[in-house]
């Protein structure tokens, strides 16, 4: 089991996820959304989590924050086990962790004014002085690049997607959290706006000393902001490694496939047309052994018999594959 965990670059892990399992029933069947994932995120680090829809990356993000209680495993945040916490203790802990969602418009209450939306975490946290709240709201809205005087009295529908995401980021930042899970924060945004929001997240990370779990399906986006990247397939981690190293020399065939599938904005790079046909199997009945074996060009008998554990292939780079590319 020791080999399964991938240590972070620094020894001081703010978040330590240990053998996390999330399963939930659908009718009489069980969806194996997350099956034994271990990872660490160092203080001040951004860990990118990539994978296709249905691979369990969002479920993992939610289970880390205890928004969905894991079936098994531990989540240590700053040394405290979140899975063992209940009620008030968990609520207090939640002030230190926040979540930013994919659809910024849907995650804002359409009937409430922006000022109230951004102040709500303060109200819940017990900041009773309205003047103090107002001052903090103004500060955080300014920080995310909005003009508070023009914004606080208006409703979400008056804003574009990019502006709504700025408001969501302001709301996530107002309690001065240490750790934010960003779940596909830019995938609903246009290219020109996406760059603005990515730059803003980077800026806020530096300014507020944040640690980020950045979940996305777009590898180029993940690479742009992450120190390390974890690749997930059907509930399990395939590969973890420093961003540049992982993109330059992917060890897992699935990582290589994801990189190859990205359309390159250069007409001289002809599309390969070698992306294997097929789709991920259902997480209700995942394949035995290596879960990627049904789509993997290198799969053999061993891959169906034996589940590969994460093991080091290069400094800081870990792969769960019997036949790695490096």
């Amino acid at each position, binding site marked *: 089991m020791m080999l399964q965990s991938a240590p972070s670059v620094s020894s001081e892990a703010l978040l330590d996820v240990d053998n996390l399992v999330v399963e939930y029933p659908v009718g009489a069947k069980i969806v194996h959304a997350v099956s034994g994932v271990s990872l660490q995120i160092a203080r001040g680090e951004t860990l990118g989590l990539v994978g*296709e*829809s249905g691979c369990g990356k969002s479920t993992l993000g939610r289970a880390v924050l205890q928004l969905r209680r894991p079936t098994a495993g531990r989540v240590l945040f700053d040394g405290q086990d979140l899975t063992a916490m209940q009620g008030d203790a968990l609520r207090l802990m939640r002030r230190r962790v926040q979540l930013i969602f994919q659809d910024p418009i849907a995650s804002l209450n359409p009937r409430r004014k922006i000022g109230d939306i951004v102040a709500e975490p303060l109200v819940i946290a017990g900041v009773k002085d309205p003047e103090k709240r107002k001052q903090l709201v103004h500060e955080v809205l300014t920080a995310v690049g909005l003009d508070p005087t023009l914004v606080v009295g208006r409703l979400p529908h008056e804003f*574009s997607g*990019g502006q709504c995401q700025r408001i969501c980021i302001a709301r996530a930042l107002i309690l001065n959290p240490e750790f934010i899970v960003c779940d596909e924060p830019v995938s609903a945004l*246009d*290219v*020109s*706006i*996406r*760059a*603005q929001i*990515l*730059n803003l997240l*980077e800026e806020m990370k530096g300014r507020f000393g944040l640690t980020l779990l950045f979940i996305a*399906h*777009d*590898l*180029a*986006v993940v*690479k*742009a*902001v*992450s*120190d390390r990247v974890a690749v997930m397939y059907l509930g399990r981690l395939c590969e973890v490694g420093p*961003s*540049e190293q992982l*993109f330059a020399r992917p060890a897992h065939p699935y990582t290589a*496939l*994801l*990189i*190859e*599938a*990205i*359309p*390159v*904005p*250069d*007409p*001289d*790079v*002809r*599309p390969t*047309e070698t*992306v294997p*046909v097929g*789709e991920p199997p259902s997480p209700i009945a995942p394949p035995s052994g290596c879960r990627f074996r049904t789509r993997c060009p290198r799969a053999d008998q061993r891959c169906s018999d034996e589940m590969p554990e994460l093991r080091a292939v290069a400094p800081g780079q870990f792969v769960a594959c019997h036949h790695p590319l490096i």
Partner: protein
Amino acid sequence: MTGNTLLSVEDVIVDLPTPRGNLRAVDRVDLTVGTGRTLGIVGESGCGKTMLSRAVLQLLPKKAKLSGRVMFDGQDLLQLPPEKLRKLRGRSLAVVFQDPMTSLNPVLTIGTQLIETLQEHLELDDATAKKRSVELLAAVGIPAPEQRLAQYPHQLSGGMRQRVAIAIALSCEPKLLIADEPTTALDVTIQAQILDLLAREQRRRHMAMIIITHDLGVVAGRTDEVAVMYAGRVVERAPTPALFKRMRMPYTEALLAALPKLDAAPHTPLPAISGRPPDPTRPLQGCSFSPRCRYAVARCQSEKPPLEAAETSAHQFACFHPIETHADANA
């Protein structure tokens, strides 16, 4: 190389009345697509690319006002009676939309939807139509096609649904296929498969295609010509290799630069385009991109630059201050 012109869009304007005033969704657009050729239309949400494709298909909202000319295969679609138009759509003019869940009928089986299309346009008998349906599903890479005929859209994954939508679109051997963000709702590995599938079927059928997308990466390797749209207008238009080799319009350059690059180091700040597109109900007097453009001068705010040819007639752009040398956005 250009061959015969299959589709020509001439001076097309689409106006949509809104409570806030008239919204000019498409503003004097001229485009052509040759037989068997592929045109990419690139732009961000709200730039008018979907409305333009709807104008071609004559599927605009009822209240929309359309002017100009849309010539397809020798016929002016704006003059065509509804009955003839209906026969044309689905037959020689097919479309694949972004979201296969909403373009397929959720209460009809895959088989019913395919067979219906085949019988409507080709007047096949039941047995032949069913046989053709199975062949089509197999051609678009759907495993166990015979069993799939009895399934409903919700029983298939997003990628499989899009394959079905493509099978329906291809069923009557169209001359032109319009693919409106065909892979935006799909995962990256599925996207690659669907784009490969479209390219393969296009070659096989010698069909013309318009790919509408917000992703310059999608058009780069898969189109003959690209038109970049901004605020309802085509702002740059060129053969694909020429465009990527030498972008002239600052918006196109900025759009490419704003994409995260796989070969850039992590935490490299992205050259974002500041601000956002103008309110389409409040058209600007000058160039629509001028408020966000770093090259803009006073003239750009007062006068609209026409879409004009540069050194070669094939490369057009609407800018008073085109980029002279290729800015190394890729380096």
